[in-house]
């Protein structure tokens, strides 16, 4: 489904150039659940950002469903809009908006009845229906992450990207969130999770270890 070919991301720093991702090639199958693991600074998040189109690779190409993606800002943002749902460690919710408005953020017409119904359905599925009128600062970490996942799902993306989704949560809540991802995956959604937690990674069908920007190990 998604193929990365010889992806490299190089940053220029005061002390010279630095390769955060170095010639990485990998294939993500449709409906798979993949964990990208590695130490802090290993390049796993950069790789995830490249997949999401937030970061432009220095070289290499991305093929999605057999089609090579353009690397322009426009092509990447179109790809992200149509196919990607993104969840991050600190939830990236807008504090001044209610849970409802946060979930509605990706929608083009958030005030329509259809949108409201969609938000209700997802929030019920994720167990946050009664929190829709609340602001993120009044919610727990687990609730915030559920809102973030609901937001990532609202446009029904093909791929869910999660960057350390349990990093800010206690173990009980982490387990609940992972159950959510597994449930999504069991319904055919492709999930890619970046984590440094081996327990979290072990719950995924496939583990790819990143070290110094390169793939250092794969586990099926």
């Amino acid at each position, binding site marked *: 489904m998604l193929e990365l070919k010889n992806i490299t991301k190089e940053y220029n720093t005061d002390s010279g150039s630095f390769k955060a991702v170095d010639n990485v090639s990998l294939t993500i199958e449709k409906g798979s659940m993949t964990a990208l693991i590695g130490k802090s600074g290993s390049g796993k998040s950069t790789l995830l950002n490249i997949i999401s189109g*937030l970061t432009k690779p220095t070289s290499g190409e991305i093929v999605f469903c057999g089609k090579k993606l353009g690397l322009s800002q426009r092509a990447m943002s179109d790809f992200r809009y149509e196919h990607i749902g993104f969840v991050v460690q*600190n939830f990236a919710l807008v504090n001044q908006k209610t849970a409802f408005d946060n979930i509605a953020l990706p929608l083009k*017409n958030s005030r329509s009845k259809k949108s409201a119904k969609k938000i209700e359905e997802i929030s019920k599925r994720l167990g946050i229906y009664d929190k829709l009128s609340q602001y993120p600062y009044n919610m727990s970490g687990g609730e915030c992450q559920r809102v973030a996942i609901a937001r990532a799902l609202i446009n029904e993306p093909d791929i869910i990207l999660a960057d350390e989704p349990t990093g800010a949560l206690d173990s009980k809540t982490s387990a609940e969130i992972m159950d959510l991802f597994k449930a999504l995956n069991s319904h055919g959604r492709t999930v890619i999770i970046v984590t440094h937690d081996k327990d979290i990674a072990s719950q995924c069908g496939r583990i790819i270890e990143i070290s110094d920007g390169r793939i250092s190990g794969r586990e099926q």
Partner: protein
Amino acid sequence: MNRIIRESKWILGRSKLFTLLLFILVNSALTVTIFSRVVSSEISADADDYKKRNEDNCYYRLLDDLEGEDGNSFERSAQCKNKQFRFLAELQDSKDLEYYICGDNSSVGIVDFKGNEKTKRNYENGGSSEYVFDNITYTEVKTMFVSKNVSDGFDVKMSSGEWFDSNDYDYNNETVSCILGNEYEGSYKIGDLIKPDDNNEFNIKQLRVRGFLKEDSYINNGTQIKLLNRYMLIPSRDIAVSQQSRASNADRYIKLTGIIKTERPVNEINDIVKQYMKSAGIPDGLYYVESSTNNNLKMFNMDIARINELLGIITVFLNIFCFFLVLTVTILFINRNTKYFATLSICGFRRSEIYGMICFTPIVLYSLGYIISVIVNAVYAMFTELSLRIRDVLLILAEEAAVLGVVCIVCVLVFRSKDLAVSLRRR
């Protein structure tokens, strides 16, 4: 577009007061900019026109002093009339100066005046020009008797109809051609007959409209600019015709209170006029030359330059100030909201949509500010003599669009320099 407007409105709603203050400032700056441009254009246009028409020339008024004992004694003398006509002939034939007959101290009462409320008012003090005599209502119309050369000499142009031809100057008082000022166009038509007061001092029986002057036509009479918009011009009879018995005293006086146009200084002109008087046999002192407006013109030009300069400085300062203020505020807005924009990015917002949101506030500020300031200036212009020129409005629109363009480009470049992935990780 829906999402851009929705999110931009939400952002603006978070800082209503600040945005309102910024809007008032930008709007004020634009209003002053348009106003100063209007004033500047108005002054410059007048000054250019004035300069073009008056450059290198001095204007002197020839006046008489026939009220005193010497004057009375001269007027009683047998050859007075002939001497005056000889003097006039010397002036008209002179190679040292150009002499224009512009007798402007008269008015003629008109029966059944067709003018409107505005033209029925006195030009100088705004009072009514109407008077009743023998149960007939007359309207006094300011009248100027002009020689044929006035049209070329003062660049007086016609809006419709034609300037007087030679036949118009050879009249017998039965029907006299007249040219009306711009404000009478619409009230009268070319060929209309106008009935003057039977007791007019020039014994004119009937006037026929020959044409209308262009708006804001004027004559520099030596000490002031005479706008002719509400004047009636009547040909001053040829000297040969006047010399015959038909000439009234008024006719002669008008002919000898004309305007001298020359490049020479006043002292030289005085000497020349004295020489003509001597040659015509007129005693010294009965006619004299009044000083020129040329010095005033120079002062006037200097003032215009200063006013323009001052307005230009104010405008430039205000625009630069607004440019930097809006730019700074927008960059601060980007810096404060980078994580929010990163969040929007992961929510599927396209880059172009985020650029649109960043530029939304400056675009709204400048667009609304521009529209309101044009309206304010248009309303102001309606109640004043100033005119809001389309050219000025479009020119400022182009300038402000350029300023807005620079603000937007700089802000987009600032945003592009941000690493959204890094911002996303910030708490």
